[in-house]
């Protein structure tokens, strides 16, 4: 392969790297903290690294999952984009864990990512 996927990357089925970063902290099964940068959209990549904390906490017989994704500057297009993406992913995760099936199907691809952005834009205009 021309461009092997580096460790710590999230990539599309065709091998294109979508996001990359490194693990800052891992305390299974309670905390995962990541350094995170978009790699396939120049305007997002140029914002540099964000920081994402994933916290998992038992509440009675359920789990409270908290994602905190921050960028160290205001007016971030990257944060706007992941704000549209996380609810899709987390809704699918909850459905998958509880029912064995996801809510919104579809292979992850740059095309699918573009669709997510259209949804954000539509919401911003409404």
């Amino acid at each position, binding site marked *: 392969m021309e461009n092997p996927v580096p460790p710590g990357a999230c990539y599309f089925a065709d091998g294109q790297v979508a996001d990359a970063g490194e693990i800052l902290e891992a305390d299974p099964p309670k905390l995962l903290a990541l350094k995170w940068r978009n790699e396939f959209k120049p305007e997002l990549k140029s914002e540099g690294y964000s920081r994402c904390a994933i916290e998992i906490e038992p*509440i*009675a*017989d*359920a789990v*409270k999952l908290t994602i905190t994704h921050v960028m160290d500057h205001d007016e971030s297009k990257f944060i706007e984009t992941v704000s549209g993406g996380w*609810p*899709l992913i*987390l*809704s*699918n995760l*909850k*459905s998958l864990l*509880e*029912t064995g099936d996801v*809510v*919104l199907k579809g292979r992850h691809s740059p095309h699918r990512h573009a669709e997510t952005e259209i*949804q954000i834009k539509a*919401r911003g205009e*409404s």
Partner: protein
Amino acid sequence: MSKPSFVYVTYIRSTPDKVWQALTDPAITERYWYGFRVAANGRAGEYMTAIDPDGKEVHRDVILVSDPPRRLAYAWRPLYDEFKDERPSRVTIDIAPVKDQVRLTVTHDDFDEGSVVLGKITEGWPSVLSSLKSYLETGRALSTPVWSSASEAEVSA
């Protein structure tokens, strides 16, 4: 600087009509809203009321927008003593079909700086809306709200 607010987006395998009914019919809210009976099926200008599991009325707030099954907005001021000095905030619920699923957006805003209610609802809505999604998709709601999990744990210990 923007005013403090809370936004929660979740996708549910359901229909707009079912999500609307689940958010407005007290016989259904009782099953997933941890025993609370929330009646919000009136028209704009009428009242949204909520009765806690002990039968005490904890909300009597005016409905601002009712456009079933797409948009519901109501004022929000819990009738507990600890919040009596805060003016009402505003809840806006948007229900949109996305392919064959539903995107539910709850926006809770119009808070003053330093609002105590904002802290409570930031904990409370995810607990309620997660339970709603579980209830609509599996028929089983979550058992314990985040706001009572500490006391529950003490009781069961």
